[in-house]
């Protein structure tokens, strides 16, 4: 770093030196950017400690799994359990869309896919299930959808 600052000293005697100084500035900025990126990554990946009470029986079972070599330690078990649970629970967040827009989206979905279950539409388009049921009923009345 100190070397870089020395190179930045104002002594551009020749054109070559000036070009070298410009290159050094670019390199210095690039290094600075990398340092900042690593710092941000370190902050993001920093672990947090959480406390939770478990029964003696549960703790005993976890300890047995650790002893048998399935997990490295109790923390390893808890981390794995949290990851499993977060993967298992997938959240669907409904979008706030008016009826006409939702109907157009549902029609587009059917045009593209050909056939689908309402719950698939719910998941893919993030629309309220009851709203989808209303739209589907209307499309059936209009003769645009048929039940397989």
């Amino acid at each position, binding site marked *: 770093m100190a070397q870089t600052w020395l190179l930045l000293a104002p002594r551009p005697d020749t054109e070559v030196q000036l070009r070298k100084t410009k290159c050094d500035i670019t390199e210095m900025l690039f290094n600075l950017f990398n340092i900042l990126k690593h710092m941000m990554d370190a902050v993001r990946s920093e672990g947090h400690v959480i406390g939770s009470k478990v029964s003696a029986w549960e703790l005993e079972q976890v300890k047995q799994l650790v002893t048998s070599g399935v997990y490295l330690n109790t923390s390893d078990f808890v981390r794995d359990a949290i990851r499993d649970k977060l993967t298992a629970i997938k959240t669907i967040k409904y979008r706030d869309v008016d009826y006409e827009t939702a109907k157009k989206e549902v029609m587009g979905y*059917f045009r593209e896919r050909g*056939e689908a279950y309402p719950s698939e539409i719910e998941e893919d388009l993030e629309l309220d299930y009851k709203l989808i*049921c209303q739209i589907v009923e209307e499309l059936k009345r209009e003769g645009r959808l048929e039940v397989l």
Partner: protein
Amino acid sequence: MEGYEVGDSIHGYRIRAEARKVSDPQVIAKTGRHKAQRLILTENAEAIIERKLAWIPER
């Protein structure tokens, strides 16, 4: 049709259900080769039979 009474049941190929709490599935052996899985939904549980729908192209 909506059912709210104890003992009301629905039966279908595909049922969409939602509730506040859902139990893990448990395998229940019905007869020799007939096996099924059972789930218990609690708190604001609701289920509906779904059918696959197909788009009728405009002519």
